């Protein structure tokens, strides 16, 4: 599995009065291979923008993204996959057809992609729901399908942009536990964005705290609490308190 090298990355937006707004400037960061890294920060600090730049869905104004010595300039489904907060499942396709979509684009033959899709559907715990349509599934189940679709390309890197943001607390915790299991099973490098400090502390090897506009990296917190973890672990509570203090200073 591969790490992500972010080099001198800058992104600007044109404001309402044609003035240049800095989203972030000269960000340098290295995301370790196989790690679970989380970015937290106030709303509008450019976390989502950073993820979309890494996925090459939008272009940076300066700087580079380097993965395994290669600069990333266009979407690379073989290396990078992404999960958005909006599951964005296609309502005209059932679960199986949604999950196999990336392989269909690649031209993998039907029988093969079906059998691979079934494997990933079972990985996210949805065996038996292959024929269901998205509107027949709960929010949590939809996000599982989304996860299976993102993993089916066997990416080296999985970017997750507030994937559980729209789910209720109980489903959220369950999904977090499932995600750790899947991460350990696949060994994929995960870069995760969330607003939830509980989630950040529970999931991550390392948390990167962003500050608001222009976003700079305010702190990097390594969490070496052994897994499996308990949400109520006092060490994690201590880390949450630290993150809260860092964010609260905004």
């Amino acid at each position, binding site marked *: 599995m591969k790490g992500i090298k972010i080099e001198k990355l800058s992104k600007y937006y044109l404001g309402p009065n044609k003035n240049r707004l800095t989203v972030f400037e000269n960000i340098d960061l290295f995301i370790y291979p196989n790690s679970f890294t989380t970015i937290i920060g106030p709303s509008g600090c450019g976390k989502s923008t950073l993820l979309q730049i890494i*996925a090459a*869905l939008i272009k940076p104004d300066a700087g580079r993204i380097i993965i395994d010595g290669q600069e990333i300039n266009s979407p690379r489904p073989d290396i990078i*996959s992404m999960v*958005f907060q909006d599951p*964005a499942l296609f309502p*005209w396709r059932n679960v199986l057809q949604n999950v196999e979509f*990336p392989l269909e684009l690649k031209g993998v033959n039907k029988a093969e992609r079906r059998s691979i899709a079934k494997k990933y559907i079972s990985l996210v715990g949805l065996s038996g729901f292959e024929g269901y*349509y998205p*509107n027949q599934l709960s929010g949590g189940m939809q996000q599982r399908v989304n996860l299976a679709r993102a993993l089916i390309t066997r990416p080296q890197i999985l970017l997750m942009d507030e994937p559980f943001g729209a789910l209720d607390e109980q489903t959220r915790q369950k999904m977090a536990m499932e995600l750790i299991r899947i991460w350990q099973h696949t060994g994929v490098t995960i870069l995760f964005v969330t607003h939830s400090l509980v989630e950040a502390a529970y999931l991550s090897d390392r948390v990167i705290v962003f500050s608001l506009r222009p976003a700079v990296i305010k702190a990097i917190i390594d969490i070496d609490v052994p897994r499996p973890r308990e949400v109520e672990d006092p060490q994690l509570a201590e880390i949450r308190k630290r993150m809260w203090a860092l964010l609260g200073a905004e």
Partner: protein
Amino acid sequence: MVFIVSTFIRIIIVIVFIALWETLPSIGLVNELTAPRFSMVLIRAGELLNPYTSSSIVPLGFYTHLSVTLFEIGVAFLITVFVAIPLGFLIGGFRLVTQIYEPLIYLIYAFPSVALYPLVVIILGFGPPSKIVFGFFLGFFPLILNTIAALRSIRPSYILVAHLFGCRKIQLLQKIIIPASASFIISGIRLALAFNIIGVLFGEIVASSIGLGFVITSATYKLDAPTEYAAIIISLTLIYIILESISFVQKRVFERED
């Protein structure tokens, strides 16, 4: 349960309406010369639909008129679909082009198009071409506007996901844009067909020598109210069947969405 109740009430309303229609003219509350009782209209409809008696009521027989009208509607509909949908994709596919053309289309759409019909007759004559063109004209705008709106309504996240997985242009059209907009476009097709029918029938009623609209007008001129009502009822039934069959297909195909 709600469905059963509403269907039941609907049937009751129709029965009451028919009962009033039958009784009011026969007790003399309504002039039977302009509003013949329901049973008379029904009998006349039967005579019109019976190939052996229909040519004694209308020249050339009812089925000649029916087939001319269906032909005109069919041609107008096909032209509408094959012109409005591709043009809608062309216009809706590019934001700048949409910004240029959409207000124009709305402007023409808002124009009372019946005012243009005499012009169409002057140019194309009394025959079927003027009806086809007018039917097309009425159907074109709802369909092109629906197509543009359908493209605009595609969720940006679908496109984002497609790009993420390396979707090529042609795949984007085939696997995302067309299926994502299909339901909306089919609603547009149904609307367009309804307007095609209105255009063709209107055209025939105003100026023609053949077609269902002609049957209605010529019966009016002859003060033959039963034939007029019968022709209207048959036309309505026909329109209902055509439009409902599109709705039926739409529901079957898209029931899993939304």
